[in-house]
């Protein structure tokens, strides 16, 4: 209860702000409509008119929730409109991309920490890789994987998702793996510990706070990657496709529900990482302060 109450209060506050914003943003349309019909809308008209528009600038919470409920609970999972189905499609790509990205990020960080050559030459290019707008090359990735003979959307989506998520892991892990104090390193030096041993026994455990902070960012980035990867693939399945379809066909509610489904998914993933982090911290003897 003590943990739920604050969340409830904050959520409530946000909902209130949201309603106010919805009325404010959506009212323009109501007024415009009325003006074209030659009427002067009353405040109540505006209020009513903003609560359930087909194409709202900002749909009020109840509208999003109702739609979400309909698309998740009331639809069969196998339905093309079921958000659970689309969510699972996206989740699969996210998890694949996240795993690949995390492994790649950690592996590169290990390389960079252990090899001066890698440090000097790879790091700048890892940065550059992130400045390449992924959406620009996503179509190329698909065209190329097509040309190479890879059918299906999973591989390109995984690539894009991993591409976005490896970087936060890399940056944090380089820092984390370098965070042991001199004395801690020297101790292992006197044991003539191998690089591998130094890594496993010291650098890795010392990097854990950085690791988990980056995992939370990376899992969110993976999701974004999966969604971006769903755009140029014919926009058929996945939450990204839903957003696009909603945007394309002028159906904001599809877009908003997909957006929310994605955010809920992201929040769940971040929470999951948080739980793993808490478990790991307990296993490593750190208590929550």
């Amino acid at each position, binding site marked *: 209860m003590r943990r739920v109450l604050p969340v409830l209060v904050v959520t409530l506050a946000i909902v209130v702000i949201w309603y106010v914003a919805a009325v404010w943003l959506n009212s323009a349309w109501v007024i415009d409509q009325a003006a074209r019909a030659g009427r002067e809308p009353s405040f109540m008209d505006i209020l009513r008119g903003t609560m359930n528009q087909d194409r709202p600038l900002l749909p009020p919470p109840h509208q999003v929730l109702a739609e979400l409920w309909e698309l998740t609970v009331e639809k069969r999972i196998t339905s093309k409109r079921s958000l659970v189905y689309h969510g699972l499609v996206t989740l699969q790509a996210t998890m694949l991309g996240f795993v690949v990205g995390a492994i790649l990020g950690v592996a590169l960080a290990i390389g960079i920490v252990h090899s001066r050559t890698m440090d000097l030459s790879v790091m700048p290019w890892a940065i550059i890789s992130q400045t390449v707008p992924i959406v620009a090359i996503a179509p190329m990735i698909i065209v190329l994987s097509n040309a190479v003979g890879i059918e299906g959307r999973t591989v390109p989506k995984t690539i894009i998702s991993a591409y976005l998520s490896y970087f936060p892991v890399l940056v944090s892990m380089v820092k984390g793996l370098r965070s042991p104090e001199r*004395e801690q390193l*020297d101790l292992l*030096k*006197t*044991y*003539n510990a191998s690089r591998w041993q130094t890594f496993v026994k*010291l650098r890795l455990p010392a990097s854990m706070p950085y690791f988990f902070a980056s995992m939370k960012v990376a899992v969110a980035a993976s999701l974004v990657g999966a969604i971006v990867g769903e755009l140029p693939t014919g926009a058929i399945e996945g939450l990204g496709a839903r957003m696009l379809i909603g945007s394309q066909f002028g159906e904001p509610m599809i877009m908003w529900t997909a957006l929310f489904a994605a955010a809920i998914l992201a929040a769940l993933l971040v929470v999951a990482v948080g739980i793993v982090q808490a478990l790991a911290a307990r296993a490593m*003897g*750190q208590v929550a302060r």
Partner: protein
Amino acid sequence: MDADGAAVIEARDLDLVFETADGPVQALKGVSLSIGRGEFVSFIGPSGCGKTTFLRVIAALEEPTGGTITVNGVSPDEARRARAYGYVFQAAGLYPWRTIAGNVKLPLEIMGYPAAEREERVRKVLELVELSGFGNKYPWQLSGGMQQRASIARALAFDADILLMDEPFGALDEIVRDHLNEQLLSLWRRTGKTIGFVTHSIPEAVYLSTKIVVMSPRPGRITDVIESPLPAERPLDIRDTPEFLEVAHRVREGLRAGHAYDE
């Protein structure tokens, strides 16, 4: 005394300069010293005179900027790779994510001791430093002195030829300290290890050592090397004998001189 004469550590004309943002700091200057196999050498000197630095040079943790040093006839780094050193750092430096037993076990894991022997050694050595019940605790759950004892245990858990100890007993009370002094002496006699030992306690230095090295600061130099006339067998009450007091006096004079030089 117990030394068989062969030089294990041979330093000649060592210089070490640290480059810092506001100019160089000369931590060691023209340090020459020869330590024979099985010797127990204490280093004593004012704070900041370079004792830690010298120990670090021996253990290949610091590269001297001048002079030469050999350990077992090879470079310190080669000796390090042959796992010649056990090192007790001035700060306990326990890994916070490992229990006390886990910390003591660490070098054993690294050096590939079999699992059963590891447990046995950890048990024994924790008993030696009187931490038997605390194997499952984490470092921050121990008092300062207990942490330091854990770090001593960690260095004693495996069999290194050369034991380098940087103020290991600084945070211990007299009784435990006396006890550990005796334990260390008997371990040294039993194993014939070569020991380099930094301390600020003159009686401790005299009681333990076959050779006492007095250093003075800025730049860190050796001002006196005293060969102890005391016998190998040393009961605690040897500390009241005139020989003992005489050596202690000489050390104190050397120390005072260093300070005078400083100020």
